[in-house]
């Protein structure tokens, strides 16, 4: 699509003589030829770019350039993120039981009495253990929010549990200096990432700290007014309407803090690590 010197419009300007037809048609042919060749070359360049893209080494299931853009998108939405923006809440009567969409990490038997939440303090190797009762001493937060599956469906669910931010304020394990987590005023030595895994380590998710400390991110123990059932993540699961359902890890085993993005089960299979809302 090459542009040549524009031809003055012949009509509407009777003073100017018309150009001879032979000249006009020669120019038409020349410009057509150049433009079509240009368009063809642009198309070929596009195809070559496409081939280059899909031939790039993959990074966690997708070509590296795509992964880089997804990560840039994540940084951009992270910069825009505000913890005061809340997911909408719904009438409790609209709550339904979500479908069970996977049991990775839940396949072994679990003895609820023996279960402990194990939290690794940031910058240390020591694990601290908590019982469900410990979590339940924190203020109980109830919310009726939309659970949004990455597949595209969504369902309103009533959840109850303790805020992860309350937990980390009471148990200051997310900062190197042992400062209580404060979402409004995060300390400089706060860990940037949280990694959460099932007790068997087969399912694992990573969260950015801002999402982890959001007031709607819960260590959840009740769904629709009932204690969690095993297939929905008993005794304790993560719930955060700031992320797709893939991040709502069931049956929390360990929580750890990290400087780099923790491994994430679905991100390794080609999904966006951030998967944030």
């Amino acid at each position, binding site marked *: *699509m090459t542009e040549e010197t524009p031809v003055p419009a012949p*009509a*509407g300007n009777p003073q100017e003589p018309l150009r001879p037809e032979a000249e006009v048609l020669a120019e038409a042919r020349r410009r057509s030829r150049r433009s079509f060749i240009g*368009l063809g070359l642009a198309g070929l360049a596009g195809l070559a770019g496409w081939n280059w893209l899909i031939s790039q080494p993959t990074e966690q299931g997708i070509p590296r350039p795509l992964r880089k*853009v*997804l990560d840039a998108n994540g940084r951009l*939405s992270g910069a825009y993120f505000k913890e005061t923006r809340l997911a909408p809440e719904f009438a409790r009567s609209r709550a339904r039981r979500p479908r069970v969409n996977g049991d990775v990490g839940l396949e072994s038997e679990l003895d609820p009495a023996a279960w402990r939440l194990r939290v690794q303090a940031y910058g240390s190797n020591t694990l601290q253990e908590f019982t469900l009762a410990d979590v339940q001493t924190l203020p109980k937060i109830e919310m009726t929010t939309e659970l949004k599956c*990455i597949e595209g469906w969504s369902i309103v669910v009533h959840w109850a549990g303790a805020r992860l931010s309350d937990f980390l304020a009471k148990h200051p394990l997310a900062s190197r200096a042992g400062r209580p987590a404060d979402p409004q005023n995060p300390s400089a030595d706060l860990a940037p990432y949280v990694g959460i895994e099932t007790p068997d380590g087969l399912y694992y998710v990573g969260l950015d700290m801002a999402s982890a400390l959001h007031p709607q991110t819960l260590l959840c123990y009740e769904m629709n007014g009932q204690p969690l059932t095993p297939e929905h993540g008993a005794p304790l699961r993560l719930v955060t309407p700031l992320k797709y359902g893939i991040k709502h890890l069931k049956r929390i085993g360990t929580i750890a803090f990290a400087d780099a993005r923790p491994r994430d089960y679905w991100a390794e299979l080609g999904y966006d690590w951030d998967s944030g*809302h």
Partner: protein
Amino acid sequence: MERGAPLGRLFFYCLVCKAGPEAASDEFEGWPVVGCTLRLLIFAAASFMKQLVEKHPLAIRWFHWVNFPVLSLMIWSGMWIYWANDVYRLGWGKTTLLKFFPNSFYQAFHLDHKLAQGMSWHFVLMWVFFLNGLLYVLYTLFSGEWRALLPTRHSFKEAIQVTLFDLGLRKQHPPVRKFNGAQQIAYTSVILMGLGSLLTGLAIYKPVQFGWLTQLLGGYEFARIIHFALTIGYVLFFVLHIAQVVRAGWNNFRAMVAGFEVVEVNPATHEVTAGPTALPAADASLSAK
């Protein structure tokens, strides 16, 4: 080719007078003397001359041809995403007229089990779609191209005339301009649809950070429905667009590649006697109404 064939064709042209004189004299390119003589004769007889008229600026052509593959890939990756929760249909109660989409459709195009790839492509190409669209709109605003594009108060009446004419229900040819009323409405709509896709897309991509937008668009699920419906709209637009481009012919198509159209001009009055045109003079037919 037989010697008599071009002569016969010339006779046909002169008789029916359907094509321009150039079409006839082109046939004789290999025969300089006959060709030139005929050319002169034809020029003398015909009361018009072919001239070039600029139609689509280079920038618009780029935006158009970048958008075509990008939007196609957005739709394609969108179908990879949609497959994972393909709940939409046309129908009522238990009656389904059309399911989006039948399994055979996914299988025929290998659209199944590609949610992760679909999302990654979608969230990369959305930037190209957005930037190309934004540049197009800015260019259209600042270059004045919007004057030809935006519908006027006459466009709706004219769009009906154009539709009736295209369906063969009306004899009188609608006014010939760069964009007729139907085109103005269609092209302006498709740009607004692009904006709609961006907004509904953002509403379902970041439904908490852009919660106000998601609520404005009827909530997370409804925004997804609009996003899907707009995509169906593009496909319908595409079918109609291709049909109309084929119908309008080569001169019109070439303008979207090379930028110009060939029109026939009366040398005495400089009036355009044939051919679609971008000339402002042709707009007078509309404003005079």
